[in-house]
Each structure stands twice: as C-alpha cells, then as structure tokens.
C-alpha cells in the first residue's frame, strides 16, 4: 500500500481562498528595540587656577578670588529623566593651622546645564541634591560662590602643593526598563 506522507512546512503564506484569484497579499513584521539611557562627558576635565587666595592688606581669605570663578565641561544625556548632582571638596593645604589661622577654604559649587542647576557646599559631606537635567547636549558650567574660611582667620602659607580641591559633576541617566 502506498503511504502518503505529508510534511508540514511552516511557511509564510497567506491563506489562499478556495478559489484561486490574482489579488495582492500583505505580510507584517513587527520590529522593536530599545536605547539605553546614557550620559557622557565629552570634556570631562577642567582646571580652575584661582591664584593668590589671601588679601595683601591683612592675610585673610580674599573671597573675590573664588566667588564667581567658572569652569566649563561639556557632555550630554539622552534621557528626559537624567539627573545632575555636584560633589564639592574644600581647598586645603597640608600645613597645620595654629590658633588664629585657617588652612582651608570652603565654597559652594553650582553646575548649570540645560537650564537646570545643581549645587553642593564643601561644608556638607557627600553630594548635593540631584536635579533633573533631562535630555541635552552642551556645556556644563561650574561656578564657585560663598567662599569662606573656618575662623575667618589668617590663611596659612601654602606648602609645596599649594591649596587644592575639586568639584565633581555627576550625570545619571534613568535606568531603562526591560521587557
């Protein structure tokens, strides 16, 4: 007896009508994907040299050497929910400060990008509050303000390394959900 074998072949076929006709048929492919949220600094480093920090008249902190000084980084974020935060570290020199003297300069740093701003004071540990910066590409301008010394005393002469500190700007994209 002859056996008939039928092979089911998956195929992308359109159901054909009972009667053969010459009409067009349409097939649909759905494609989807996702882009992860990212932030990047295209210019991640800058140096702000403030020069002489003390007043010639009395040896105390010259706040005008700090306040209003700016540096510019550049970067981008691709997420509308991206945030920006600032962490400020005070200026210090390694020499000890006897009574009547200070060896550190505290200040506030404010980062502005995409019309959003985030700031932090070196007087508080850790980063400042994050602000939503959103989707942007361009400058991140860091401005210093509110300079002070702990006792408003005489500034200790800087050691070989000078007075150093820094401002770290952190850009955080939102986490892209999977599925």
């Amino acid at each position, binding site marked *: 007896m002859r056996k008939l074998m039928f092979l089911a072949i998956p195929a992308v076929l359109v*159901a054909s009508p*009972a009667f053969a006709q010459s009409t067009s048929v349409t097939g649909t*492919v759905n494609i989807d994907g996702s882009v992860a949220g990212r932030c990047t600094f295209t210019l991640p480093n*800058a140096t702000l040299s403030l*020069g002489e920090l003390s007043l010639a008249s009395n040896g105390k902190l010259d706040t005008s050497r700090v306040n209003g000084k700016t540096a510019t*980084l550049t970067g981008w974020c691709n997420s509308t929910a991206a945030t920006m935060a600032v962490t400020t570290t005070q200026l210090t020199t390694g020499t000890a400060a006897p009574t009547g003297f200070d060896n550190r300069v505290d200040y506030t740093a404010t980062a502005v990008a995409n019309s959003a701003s985030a700031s932090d004071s070196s007087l508080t540990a850790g980063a400042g509050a994050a602000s939503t910066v959103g989707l942007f590409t361009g400058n991140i301008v860091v401005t210093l303000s509110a300079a002070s010394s702990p006792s408003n005393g*005489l500034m200790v002469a800087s050691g070989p390394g000078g*007075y150093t500190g820094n401002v770290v700007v952190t850009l955080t994209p939102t986490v892209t959900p999977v599925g």
Partner: protein
Amino acid sequence: MKQTIGLSALALMLTASPALAQSNTATGTVAIDGQVRSVCILGDPNPALVNLGQISASSGPRTGKIDTIAPRTVTLPASFCNFAGSVVRVTTTAMTSSDTTSPQPGFTRAVNYTATASGWAVGTAAATSSALRDGTSPTATGTGATQPLPKIADIAVTLSNFTTPGDLILVAGNYSGNVVVTLGPAAVAD
C-alpha cells in the same frame, strides 16, 4: 477532494537581548588650585614715638649727666607671619643730639640704650647700642630665636638701660634715636 491548507501568519518576533546590568553614570571633574603667599605684617607701633622728656639730671651729684630713666614699652599688636620659621630682629640706633659738632672733652652727644622685643618666639630679640661719645658707631642689631609655626601675637618692644659713653655730661639739645623692628623669614643656613 480538495484540501485546503490554511496557514496562519506567523509573526516573527525579534527579541531584543535583555539590557545588560551596566552603569551609565558619568562624572566630570573640575580641579581647583590656588596658593597663599608667605607674608609677615607687624602691627603699627603704639606709641610710635617714645618721648623721654628731660634726660639729664637737674640737681644733685649727677647734674648734667644722664638721669635714671625708667624702661618704656611699645606694643606692635596682632603681628603675624603665616609661615613656619620666622624671626624678629631689632636694630637699635643710639640717641644723638641734633648738634652734630664733635663734643668738647668731658661731654657726650650720644645716649646708648637697649631695645628688647618679646612675645614672638622663645626668649627675646635684643640689641644694645654702643655709640661713642661723638655719636659714631650708633647702631646694633640683635636677632631672636626662630618661631617654628605660623603665629599671630602682640610684640612688645621695651627700651631700657639708658647710659652715656664714659658717663659724661650731656651736650644741651634735642636727642633722637630709633629702633627698627623687622619680622621675616629666618636666614637660610648655607
């Protein structure tokens, strides 16, 4: 017999690969530097001028000679150096008469004295003038100990020990001298 094959469209799904667990936080750093120059500033002397008045005795066995003059103290308030290794120096210049002619035998136109600066480092900085009676060699300098830390303090300068060369009679006139106080880095040893 007709056979109808119905095929349903099968959708092909392209499944995206699951998002990898990676950090997309970016940080940028602004490094900030500055310096503070080494500086010393002496407070303005108070009083700036010490007026001894009459310095010769008017009566008694020392008539015409240098009288006993009590020490006088001048304060340089809130003097400071912001660096380690500073010293005070005093340079004492004898008081001499405004009449510059060489004095007759038995007379002096110079008054010597000691200036002592205290309040800075351990001990004092002192200088005693040793002018001759004609007023030559009027200046002496003394340096104090090295102050090892930055410091702010009142510096006191005391004038004392007023004498004349040979204890001779003072030529009549107005006498003036001065003390120069210097605050600065200790000399670098060779």
